[in-house]
């Protein structure tokens, strides 16, 4: 059984169809990249998968359960957690408390949640900032915190939205390595990324969107040779 099965997913905003008849699946253990030019519908797809907006039509099955109508917190509880393209910390809470909010999902007791959150902070290399306020972190730290909060919910599928955007090469490599490691430990990833370099480097499989439709999928090598993709996407990017 696929971990995630999306069939004929569609979302309209007024007259605009942001996502149109999208069908794909994600297998356990994969890192799947979702790419496409700006406005292709990637963030909208994420918002539907994570319960923030309801699909106009179509079906999303996660671990065999339909999650179309679920709220984000319910989706999260099932093991599907997202991060945000624009980082969303809790600014007046400490870094530890930020991560604890995620950890509370499966550890209602504060002592346990704190312990889990500390483990996560070690993983994302932010343990030394545990007592700092969320608002004083730098962008690379915030990007890692964004992953850390989500990680603390112990997801089986993690959706990362442009998690490397705005980072320098070294910082980016650190995050990519983290993703690879977590993937080896069993977490499945669906990642949206603008930077081809990141996607090609990380993904086992790539899905290409354009104008809300899937115009191709395959291994990074296949994708980089697919004429439709090249025309629609690669030509527009650097």
């Amino acid at each position: 059984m696929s971990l995630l099965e999306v069939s004929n997913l569609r979302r309209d905003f007024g007259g605009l169809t942001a996502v149109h008849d999208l069908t794909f699946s994600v297998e356990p253990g994969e890192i799947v990249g979702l790419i496409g030019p700006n406005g292709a519908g990637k963030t909208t797809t994420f918002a539907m998968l994570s319960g923030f907006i309801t699909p106009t039509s179509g079906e999303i099955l996660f671990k065999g359960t339909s999650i179309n109508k679920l709220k984000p917190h319910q989706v999260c509880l099932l093991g599907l957690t997202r991060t945000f393209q624009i980082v969303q910390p809790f600014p007046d809470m400490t870094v530890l408390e930020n991560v604890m909010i995620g950890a509370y999902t499966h550890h209602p007791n504060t002592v346990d949640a704190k312990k889990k959150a500390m483990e996560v902070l070690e993983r994302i290399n932010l343990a030394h900032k545990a007592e700092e306020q969320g608002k004083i972190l730098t962008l690379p730290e915030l990007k890692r915190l964004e992953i850390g909060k989500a990680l603390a919910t112990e997801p089986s599928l993690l959706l990362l939205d442009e998690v490397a955007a705005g980072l320098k090469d070294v910082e980016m490599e650190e995050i990519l390595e983290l993703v690879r490691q977590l993937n080896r430990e069993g977490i499945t990833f669906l990642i949206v990324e603008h930077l081809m370099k990141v996607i090609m480097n990380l993904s086992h499989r790539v899905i290409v969107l354009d104008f809300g439709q899937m115009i191709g999928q395959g291994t990074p090598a296949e994708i980089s040779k697919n004429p439709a993709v090249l025309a629609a996407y690669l030509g527009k990017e650097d």
Partner: protein
Amino acid sequence: MKIQIKKSTILIGLLLIVGFILPRFAGEYYIHISVLVLFYAYMAVSWNILGGYAGQHSLGHALFMGIGAYTSTYLFTVIGLTPWIGMWLGGAFAGVIGGFVGYLCFRYGVKGPYFALVTIALAEAAVYIVTNIPSIGGAQGLEVAWTGNAPQLMQFDGKSGYYYMILVMTIIAVWLSSWLIKRRFGYQLLSIRENEDAAEALGVNTLRLKIQATVISAVMTALGGTFFAQYFTYINPRAVFGEGPSVQILLFAIIGGIGTVWGPVVGALVLIPIAELSRGWLGGTFAGAQILLYGTVLVLTMLFMPNGILGLYHKFLGKFQNRQSDGGKSEAL
């Protein structure tokens, strides 16, 4: 392991001792001021759970105060039910109304200034509704008939009885508030205040939590309403449902330090005595001088210390101690 007594523990201990022995030394007038301090501290702590922790700024909390005051007083006046029971019925009533209001607002995404407006409107509606029901006193209000020193009817000879009652209520409220904020429920409320979408994405049932916070806050506020009625022995629609109490309740929380355990207490502790004493000095009319004072203090607070008195205190403390981390929440005190 080293046994460590925190400075805050000592401070709280001292406060408690002073609190309990105060009536032995203070005259009636000072006990009265202390009752006011404790009453508004209690109300601000209650408001703070919804307004400070969850960040949902109710500007119409008098709605719940009025429900508490009217329920217990009406039941006492009409069927002679002791306010000790009426108080809880009022609390339950306010809890149901709070849950209903919370559900309607939060289910349909009413938040921020819109939530504030809805709560003002509801409290104001309550003023008009109660004013137009003659059987519960109409515009005249209700009087709590004096039955002599009758603790079983929540009536005490002199002010000390009331003082001890509101002291215990405030202690319980502060304790509850500090207990809540140290556990999942409290942290999740904070996360809603800080970033609702992020909270929801991390598994926080934001709708349920906001409704729960509203209910808890409403029940506590209504219990305070009963105390108010018993202490002043007279209520009318504007005095308990009006904008006056609504604003006062949140004023002390904002000035003391919104979203903190002790901020609401500090706010009342600092402001009430100033307001009361200045009333004597200025010799002005009750409403005029006080509103002017509160307005000025509020504006100054917003401008110069957005985190309230406690925020300012921590800022200075931070300068001296170079912000050594205490391993706990900076909000804790």
